[in-house]
């Protein structure tokens, strides 16, 4: 997917860019509204992440301008403020969602997904391995002729596997991707979700293998 990130804090922007690229997205970065304007006039984005306080103006004016120009590209506002501190809420101006800083990447991901799902319904680029197709946006998994809707953690887990097929992924990393940092979870908790995925994938061409002492690996045809 193609993202536009409008954020004036370079270190934060770098971290977000890093993360989005890690997840396989293409991201353009604008440090101010002017640059953002020139990007949006030449490129169509799947989603825009927009900061509110920018050096050359208020992100909300960009938002208004986009909406009045007829653009319906989903926009998620990244804000250091909260709703109660804004007299005019970003949502009222046409933002699809907002997420307060600092944010959990998983939450950002979940919100992006929700917004995109509301917007287009299904993703255009399903991930396929053999007879398995994953629609990450709709959260559905197709195995042969049967389609199941995945729970959120199942979806995030299978996304981790589908993103790096054949690689060994440690339980610890999976825990960090699935649980929030203030949850006391043992690594065994992962086994529950791996078990559920295996059930969904029982008749498929792929399998989640246990690599003793190291973690799991997605075996693909």
């Amino acid at each position, binding site marked *: 997917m193609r993202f536009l990130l409008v954020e004036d804090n370079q270190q934060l922007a770098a971290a977000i860019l890093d993360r989005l690229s890690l997840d396989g997205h293409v991201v353009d970065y604008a440090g101010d509204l002017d640059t953002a304007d020139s990007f949006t006039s030449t490129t169509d984005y799947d989603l825009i992440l927009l900061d509110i*306080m920018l050096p050359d103006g208020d992100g909300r004016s960009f938002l208004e301008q986009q909406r009045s120009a007829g653009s319906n590209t989903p926009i998620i506002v990244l804000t250091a403020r909260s709703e109660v501190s804004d007299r005019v809420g970003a949502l009222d101006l046409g933002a699809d969602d907002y997420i307060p800083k600092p944010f*959990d990447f998983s*939450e950002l991901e979940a919100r992006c997904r*929700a917004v995109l799902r509301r917007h287009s319904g299904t993703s255009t680029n399903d991930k396929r391995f053999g007879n398995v197709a994953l629609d990450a946006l709709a959260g559905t998994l197709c195995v042969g002729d049967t389609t199941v809707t995945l729970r959120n953690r199942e979806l995030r887990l299978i996304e981790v596997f589908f993103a790096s097929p054949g690689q060994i992924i440690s339980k610890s990393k999976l825990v960090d991707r699935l649980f929030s940092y203030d949850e006391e979870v043992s690594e065994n908790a992962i086994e529950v979700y791996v078990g559920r995925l295996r059930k969904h994938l029982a008749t498929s061409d792929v399998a989640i293998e246990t690599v003793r002492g190291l973690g799991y690996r997605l075996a693909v045809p």
Partner: protein
Amino acid sequence: MSIFRAGTGSIRRRLTLQLLASAALLAVVLFVIVFNFARQIGAESQDRVLAASAASILEATAVQSGEIVIDIPYFAFSMLDNANDDRVFYQIAQDGEVLTGYDDLQTARGPGSAPNFATVAFRGEVLRVVTQTRRLSSDGRPVNVTVTVGQTRDAQAEVLNRISRMAVALGIGFFVVSALLAILAGRVTAESLSRLAASVSRRGPEDLRPVVADVPAEMRPLVRSLNAMIARLSGAFNRTEDFIAEAAHRVRTPLATVRAHAENTLRRVDREENRDSLREMIRAIDESSRAAGQLLDHAMVSLRVDQLELHPVDLHSLTRELADKLAPVAEMRDMDIRLNRMAGAEVMGDAILIQNALRNVLENAIKYSPADTAIDIDLQVRDHRAYVSIRDQGPGFRPGEASTLTGRFTRGENAAGTIGSGLGLTIADEVARAHNGQIEMTNNTEGPGACVTLSFPLR
């Protein structure tokens, strides 16, 4: 407690009373003037007739062969006739010796031959008399003939009576008209004041625009200083809001940077010790950012509560919207937010505050419940109140603990291990109370979990 010190009364009443007093005074003065003028005119006309009568008698006085001959003309007395049958007395004297008439009639003395007037008592009556002297010549000697004509004053008193009655009526009429005008003036003056007051008090607490009102020139300084104060007030509010927004920005942006980097690093690092310290870092960041966020929210909520602006709020769609907003967060923990019995309810309040209060409760429910459970939201209407209850399947409240949790920085015993600021329920409670609402915290009767209910009076 009244903010006014011992009142200085009402402008309207004072103005009206002052105008009434001056109207009464003017009415009395008017009466006195009219009365005196009438009396003077009356007296003058009687004097003129008396003088004419005396003159006509003197005119008819002649000396015939050394004798004074007076042929009193008929009209000398008929001109004094009137409807009141005023009685007429006369005296004719020659050099102080009474020739004819009433010899005990007092004369009006005075110098010269011009008629002299006097008001005298005569046989129990009050008379107006005129005395005029004519010098005749008898056998070469001068003879002074003095004529005195007196008349009772019944007709004049009668006329005066009539005129004074009219003057009283005039005075009263004048007073009544002035009183009406005074009341009207009082009302008009008070109206421009109360119009100004209304235009100030009608505006909502967030409306800090300058007052623009058509006011009399005398009130302009008041409006000017009112506007100066509004400007200072809105400046102070804006500075506070800007400060809060700026503080939030300054605190949370670097925290976001550190957190994002830490999370990215965590994805790349394999060594378990490093991973542990990164997790600790993220936890600490979450804790401080949660605290900072809630502190700033709390400050902002208090500010908004202080200048609470009431609008009709559709509680039903507000609750639905909130559930939608938090659905992605709940989903991350495989939790469902279920909207069950959702009645329609409209309350008066600040939608953003009410949603923030509910949001704090719902976020708690999501945070403190185990994964794979559901949160149930109901919106019910009873006894003219709307009740939004949020039930989770978490550990619930410890006995006796619920009532303490609305205190600042108080956290339940079951909250250990979960990041929180201890301000969420404080905010919810503050918002509820500002809207004449209530927050009630109980445990579910069926099954485990907490049930937090916010109630607001219906619109």
